[in-house]
């Protein structure tokens, strides 16, 4: 039985939910974005990545979901910044679940973030290797 209820949030969740430093969108020639999830399913996110010289210079997100989901999206965007394109696939939803003490019942929402990141990586790869 889980000892974390729906309305118990770890301090880092509270901090990231209240201060969404990466909330917003990006535009420009070096920017890709990808969305996953849906409002109907209760969680949806779009991730923007600005990549310069194969490295993420800036990341931003928009998110619809519970505080755990918003905090995880904020954490993902922060994590992406400074990573190379190759390193992006190392993001682990399990680590985020542990770090933010996200209840097991909400694991599906972290997979939505993983999907958004994967789609963004695919777009980045196809953009930078148009012939492949």
């Amino acid at each position: 039985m889980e000892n974390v209820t729906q309305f118990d949030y770890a301090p880092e969740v509270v901090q990231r939910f209240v201060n969404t430093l990466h909330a917003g969108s990006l535009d420009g020639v070096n920017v890709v974005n990808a969305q996953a999830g849906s409002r109907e399913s209760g969680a949806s996110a779009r991730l923007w990545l600005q990549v310069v010289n194969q490295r993420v210079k800036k990341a931003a997100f928009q998110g619809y979901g519970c505080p755990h989901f918003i905090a995880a999206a904020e954490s993902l965007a922060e994590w992406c910044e400074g990573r190379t394109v190759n390193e992006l696939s190392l993001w682990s939803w399990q680590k985020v679940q542990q770090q933010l003490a996200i209840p097991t019942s909400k694991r599906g929402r972290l997979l939505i973030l993983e999907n958004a990141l994967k789609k963004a990586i695919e777009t980045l790869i196809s953009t930078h290797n148009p012939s492949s």
Partner: protein
Amino acid sequence: MNTPIYLDYAASTPIDPRVAASMHQCLTNVELQGNPSSLSHRYGRAARGVIEKARQQVAGALNAKPVEVIWTSGATESNNLALFGVAHYHADRGKHIISSKTEHKAVLEPLKRLEKQGYRVTYLKPDEFGIVHPQQVQEAITPATILVSLMHVNNEIGVIQNIGEVGSLCSERQVLFHVDAAQSAGRLPIDVKQMNVDLLSCTAHKLYGPKGIGALYVRRDPVVGLEPLIVGGGHELGLRAGTLATHQIVGFGLAMELMTKQRDADHARLTILRDQLCNGLQGIADIKRNGHATQCVPNILNVAFDGVEGESLLFALQDLILSAGAACSSGSDEASYVLRALGRSDQQAQSSLRFSLGRFTTEQDINVAVAAVSREVTRLRSISASLL
């Protein structure tokens, strides 16, 4: 951190200081420490005396006779006693019960269990405003119908059902009528005789009294047959065994009396505050009121905020104490079944908040609440603007 603003009176009201004082006095007066059933000595008789005074106070608010008031642990037990009690006692007359889809779980769950025991239950669907029309009840009654159970005021949306009319048509057809009045007792005028109500559930903690004490009105003339749930020492005319909680009952009695005395003043004041809240929230785009605009109590306002996730909104409004759904089920991720019965989508239901005001709510509280909701709805919408 600021002191949070309490806007969850429909879940539970704070105890009125006058009620708390009466309970404290009861708990500290040695002469009231006897068992109220021990009528052979004066301490027992003294305890029985204050209990009977409280019974008169509760009965008076319902236009019932004191003997028709049975003490229980709260509205949930009262509902269980009414539903199981009637169903089991009258099973030989028929096994059909009528209720609605928007009842409290304390009615729906006993009904589910009765279905498993072979009873048939018709759950009436309210209209888009949450109103169950008496005509629906009339059409659902069959020769096998033994009981109609409807709530007076819905706990999530505050809609008032037409109890008098339903009572009248039940009486004409000799079908028993139970009313869950947890949200209305003391708050709205109730006359069980005039409304043809046979059983009525109420609880103290919704009317500035203590938690853990409630009552079931059971008509005595002619008597409503009821099978008890709890048996033992034959207390409460054999309908609910167990030693009576003197201080709880004393608190309930006074709370009910104060509610009745202050009803008109409270109603007028809460109407002004509710309208202030409603008008303030109108400044936020894409909101929708859940429930009926006029056939409602003044202390409950339920609003859907399109495009905002409910749990996040509730959490963002940490300085406000309020509910996203009914208190008993607000730990659940599930969208409100009441709002879904009104035709709201899961998303709309999930994006709804219930504001419930009370005796200690101030104009300043409402101003702060409106500003906080407006700010957080705007913020949450801004971080999800592009999403489908």
